[in-house]
């Protein structure tokens, strides 16, 4: 318990110091933080509750569009837009979950692709709602207390708050009743029911929370890009990347998804500048290597290794 919070505090300090240490590298950092937040949020449903989604870009898109359209069309500032986005995302997650939670394992995963793709098509084709394929520019933003929200610094702090907030929430939930309910549902729904847990409700709540948080990150992402296009925001590969980040880092661990974000975004960044055209190839190879040597993800494999070794030692004398 306390170890988690020590690590968390370390991360927070790192986050606070970073912009002063490396002021020129803020947008990479924003990307890392967004992915850390997304992957952690994804993990609430995907890791803790076992509902692997490949459709989370839908929440990113929803969040980004709500914030952007709120600002551009209605003049609603982002600090109102973000909570609205979160609420709408939770609503979407509720409907979505109601529809698909009866599906098990791979079927659920495939259904998330389907739902997200359908939403992407809606976003592209219903231009009265979203501005359609041509996209939406955010060209003005309010300046609360004189803070320029277009500045990378402001966006960095938003992304940092998002990432740390999400991680903290997971750290808290993981040791509370809800965290245990999610674990139980992930492991075995029948046993969970025998323990008095309503699996559908648990999954719904996890998915709603996951979606709402993802949408908050999406809203920040929209501001970060300042230009929204459905093909970008609802991109299937974005969903995949979010899931990938979490799985590579270690599902069902507090810091795994964030570690995954540092690794994947960091590596992506380095590969992009050093390997030119081969960068995605190298990225693919990296994924394969991590998967082969850390099948449960970096952090999960680490924890498991430590636990096993400790237990093996303790029983050796038996």
């Amino acid at each position: 318990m306390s170890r988690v919070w020590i690590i968390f505090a370390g991360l927070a300090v790192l986050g606070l110091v970073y912009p002063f240490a490396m002021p020129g590298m803020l947008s990479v950092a924003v990307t890392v933080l967004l992915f850390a937040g997304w992957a952690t949020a994804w993990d609430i449903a995907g890791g803790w509750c076992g509902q692997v989604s490949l459709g989370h870009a839908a929440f990113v898109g929803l969040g980004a569009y709500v914030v952007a359209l709120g600002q551009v069309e209605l003049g609603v500032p982002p600090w109102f837009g973000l909570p609205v986005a979160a609420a709408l995302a939770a609503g979407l997650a509720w409907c979505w979950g109601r529809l698909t939670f009866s599906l098990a394992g791979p079927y659920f995963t495939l259904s998330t692709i389907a739902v997200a793709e359908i939403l992407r098509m809606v976003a592209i084709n219903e231009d009265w709602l979203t501005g359609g394929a041509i996209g939406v520019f955010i060209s003005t933003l309010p300046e609360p207390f004189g803070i320029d929200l277009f500045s990378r610094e402001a966006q960095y702090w938003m992304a940092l708050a998002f990432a740390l907030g999400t991680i903290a929430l997971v750290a808290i939930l993981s040791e509370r009743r809800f965290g245990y309910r999610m674990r139980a549902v992930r492991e075995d729904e029948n046993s969970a029911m025998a323990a008095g847990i309503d699996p559908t409700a648990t999954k719904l709540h996890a998915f709603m929370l996951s979606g709402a948080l993802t949408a908050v990150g999406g809203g920040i992402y929209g501001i970060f890009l300042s230009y929204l296009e459905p093909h970008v925001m609802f991109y299937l590969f974005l969903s995949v990347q979010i899931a990938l980040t979490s799985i590579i880092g270690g599902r069902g661990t507090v810091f795994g998804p964030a570690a995954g974000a540092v690794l994947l975004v960091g590596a992506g960044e380095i590969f992009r500048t050093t390997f030119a055209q081969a960068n995605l190839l190298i990225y693919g190879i990296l994924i394969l290597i991590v998967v082969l040597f850390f099948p449960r993800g970096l952090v999960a494999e680490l924890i498991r290794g430590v636990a096993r070794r400790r237990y093996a030692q303790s029983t050796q004398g038996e």
Partner: protein
Amino acid sequence: MDTTAFLQNVSNGFLIGGVYALIGIGLTLVFGVMRTINFAHGDFTVLGMYGAVAFNSAIGWDPYAALIVAVPAAFIGGVLIERFVLSRLVEAPPETTLLATLGLSLIIGNCLLLIWGPEPESVNVPYAATTLAVGSVRVSVVLLAAGLMTLAAITALWLFLSRTETGRAVKATASNRLGAELVGIDTRRIHSLVFGLGTSLAVIAGVALIPLLFANPTNLGPIFTLKAFVVTVLGGLGNVWAAIAGGLILGIVEVLGTAYLASEYRDAYGLIVFLAILLLRPEGLFGRTTKRA
């Protein structure tokens, strides 16, 4: 409604559906036996397309003749991938395997990108746009050929699974891997075989499609993979005949939706039917349910 156009659309839907089925059966087989969602499936189809393009430009033979080389090559490739990647992940959670195949998909696509460059490739055959007239309906020769290949592939696969001892072993492995080992089945070999067959089928689809479409290194693979998923789930996992039904349903729904509803939602129609079927019959249209764990 114009009946000729309607018939034309229905027949096109059938033919496209045949192609979808061809893309889907390999995935169905792999999914059914190995419980692996193979995200690289469509990339193998694209590999098949490039194979045919290369074959055609190197020797100048008809692209269909590429099957002679492409199918064995794909089989060996699939076996190697299973040996060196997937077989190491049998103990890992299923999402890990999914990740591995995603990695493979990136690797295949980007290798093609490095070798061929990003531009689409195709072969220009004289019969690409040729049709046969059946009454007032025109039937694309290339689609018809693809449909026949589907039929041949599925029949062969079915015969293999139901009539041969190895086929039974495949089914047993699908059902319980350790159980199969215990009755003397080399399940590693079976997994390699199945994955090899899966990639071969994907490659056949690619060769069948190239005269009609185009190959590009990175964009097309995932699109095929998604279609294959839809087909697979519509039919029911692991049921090869059902893949035909899944493909046909998808083809018809897409074509009629595009023609008579709104063209821009084409892919959505398939996905909506896919969701509906998933929800009403989680085991697919032709799957059976077993209640007890």
